[in-house]
């Protein structure tokens, strides 16, 4: 029983990432009709926003320490962060420690801007082209983005730790009456799950309860009629692209302490996120979220040692297996709408 709870918890945070990426993918597909294979790269860029902010906050000047030597025997050059000079060592250390949460403030405008540039600069030229062309150009863009990141940050993962206050694990099992240390769950993963839930709720509330959201939903349902009513739906859809990019970026920022950012992480998530979108139902926002969590949890279960022992390799194919079963039984996915991608 305890192992089942552990795997459900594990699936929740992985599912949160899938859900956030799939939510953005669905928003873009639902509004602009574009299959965006660069969405995983936006997740990766988000995680590198955390790396960049961490480096900005750790920006240092060099002080020569005559009492110590470097690897060549020269006097040691010690890097002293500017924030130590400005706020004192203790406060400066705390600011650096909280780099990842602070990155959220940095990532939102950056990612909206990146999304805006992507849409206006490249993707809008492909609206009337076949989906295959859109896939090719966005996939190419994803490769360019990851190569740019690799050029500046190298190929190895870059450790970006969570604040000290969130290191360690919550003894979840004790709350449920199990022995101590039976069900441990890292604090940061809990934060990630709550953060994802908040973002998902915020996106839904934005679409549901604001005039802007209402117009966007109307445009998703019938773009032509909304245009006839004199509303410039294209501008709103461009902004939605920016918001979708920001959602993927925020998912990446907060994921940085869970998996050390590397240039390839977007590709790792991209294919799975598309499976999530298809399983959830093309164009369905609730479907994308539900499928994200469902497949995240299933993937966790499939990675349990006794499961891998009985069915070797099941952990690598489970998502695709479930996708096949769901698409055979419900061809439009869990919550797919009639008419989407069916012409």
């Amino acid at each position, binding site marked *: 029983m*305890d*192992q089942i709870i*552990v*795997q459900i*918890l*594990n699936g929740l*945070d*992985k599912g949160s990432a899938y859900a956030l990426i799939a939510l953005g993918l669905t928003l873009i597909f639902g509004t602009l009709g574009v299959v965006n294979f660069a969405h995983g790269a936006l997740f990766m860029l988000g995680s590198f926003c955390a790396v960049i902010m961490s480096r900005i906050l750790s920006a240092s000047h060099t002080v020569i320490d005559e009492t*110590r030597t*470097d*690897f*060549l025997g020269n006097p*040691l050059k010690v890097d002293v962060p500017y924030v130590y000079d400005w706020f004192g060592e203790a406060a400066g250390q705390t600011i650096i420690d909280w780099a990842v949460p602070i990155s959220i403030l940095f990532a939102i405008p950056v990612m909206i801007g990146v999304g805006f540039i992507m849409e206006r600069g490249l993707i809008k030229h492909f609206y009337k082209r076949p989906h295959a062309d859109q896939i090719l150009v966005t996939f190419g863009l994803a490769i360019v983005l990851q190569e740019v990141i*690799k050029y500046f940050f*190298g*190929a*190895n*993962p*870059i*450790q970006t*730790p969570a604040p000290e206050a969130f*290191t*360690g*694990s919550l003894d979840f099992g004790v709350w449920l009456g199990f022995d101590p*240390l*039976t069900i*441990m769950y*890292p604090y*940061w*993963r809990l934060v990630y799950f709550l953060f994802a839930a908040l973002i998902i709720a915020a996106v839904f509330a934005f679409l549901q309860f604001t005039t802007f959201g209402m117009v966007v939903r109307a445009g998703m349902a019938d773009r032509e009629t909304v245009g006839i009513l004199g509303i410039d739906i294209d501008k709103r859809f461009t902004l939605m692209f920016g918001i979708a990019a920001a959602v993927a970026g925020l998912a990446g920022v907060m994921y940085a*302490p*869970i*998996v*050390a950012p*590397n240039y*390839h*992480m977007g590709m*790792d998530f991209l294919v799975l996120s598309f499976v999530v979108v298809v399983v959830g139902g093309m164009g369905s926002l609730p479907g994308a979220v539900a499928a994200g969590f469902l497949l995240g949890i299933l*993937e*966790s279960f499939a*990675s*349990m*040692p006794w499961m*891998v022992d009985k069915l*070797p390799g099941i*952990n*690598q194919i489970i998502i695709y297996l479930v996708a096949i079963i769901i698409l055979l039984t419900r061809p439009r996915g869990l919550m797919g709408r009639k008419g989407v991608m069916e012409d």
Partner: protein
Amino acid sequence: MSKSNFTRRGVLKTGALAGAGLTLPTYLRAQDSGFTNAPTGDSVTLGFNVPQTGPYADEGADELRAYELAVEHLNGGGDGGMLNTFSSKVLDGTGIMGKRVDYVTGDTQTKSDAARASARSMIEKDGAVMITGGSSSGVAVAVQALCQEAGVIFMAGLTHSNDTTGKDRKANGFRHFFNSYMSGAALAPVLANAYGTDRKAYHLTADYNWGYTTEEAVRSSTEAMGWETVNAVKTPLTQTDFSSYIAPVLNSGADVLVLNHYGGNMVNSLTNAVQFGLRDAMANGKNFEIVVPLYSRLMARGAGANVKGIYGSTNWHWSLQDEGSQAFVRSFGEKYGFPPSQAAHTCYVQTLLYADAVTRAGSFAPCAVAEALEGYEFDGLGNGPTLYRAEDHQCFKDVLVVRGKENPQSEFDLLEIVEVTPVEQVTYAPDHPQMGGAAATLGTCNNGA
């Protein structure tokens, strides 16, 4: 009517000369012809096949720096580096046998097929007489086999799997880097000393060639010390989040987690293990411990503070105080501004060893070079007295057991040397079961064309 030029005296003379020639070692009778890419001008081309893209690109970049430094030193540039400390004195800074050393580079992408394609291109189009490099055992085994077929020497870079000089050993292939068996043999006594002999280990193993041999080596060494292995789980090489694999560890009855992971896998699995509280946990009344059999400084930098106090092994470390290591660190550090990695060290050394073997053999012919390297004993290259064993073309030398440093003094100061395990402790028979048993052979040396 025909006239024969054969005379009884002539045949006897020729026979005597041929017999004398055949009794000499190959490298004393080698000719600079009749082998693949025999250098003809005033230069010789070496092929550096390293991962310039892909997950091990940082290791590859450091390897390339080391190769460039080695070429500079061989051609008489810079401060000479380890040429000054090498026990052999035949290299004099005039290239190799008076020929200037040129090089071409290829990108393995850490993929066997890409690595073979780039090696083939360097051999067939660029005329490389020797191929060296690689940062993955899968790549090394594949390129080594190609070099064997093509008739050129392969001087392996960073490859740690037993198979490279075990079941997949080749007559044209040579490895300076240590291997999984040596890691296990060096680590086990240190672990027993630090954590006791009554321990239960749980292995997470990268699901490919290197992972298997490392798990096998560490398991057999630690079990011989009294440890029990409670479980060993294979993890996909592409895995980034190891939480599903880490979470069951604490309730498995294990009190040690062995991460048979390298590169990005290791950074992420170790990070996940620390996040799940394994470093602070108690199991079976003991502190829970984590072990990483193969460490690299580049990897340790990626894992950050998570490596503190964690044991592992390494082929070489820049903090070694011997004359050779210091000379190399000084050359490399002054040229590039940071200390070299173990990948850089082994690649630099392999280039020097190749150049030295050619010079001693008096020939670039692969079989002559191989014969010069087989059974060759040398010193002054950073690992103490070292033997290139003839039976499997594996270098035998001391192995370093290291630990993540608790209080690093700089961004490079991440590992501390806990023990220098003597070579006797990590030496094994050429037909050891982990090395392919009696069936494993080098085959016949191939000179190619």
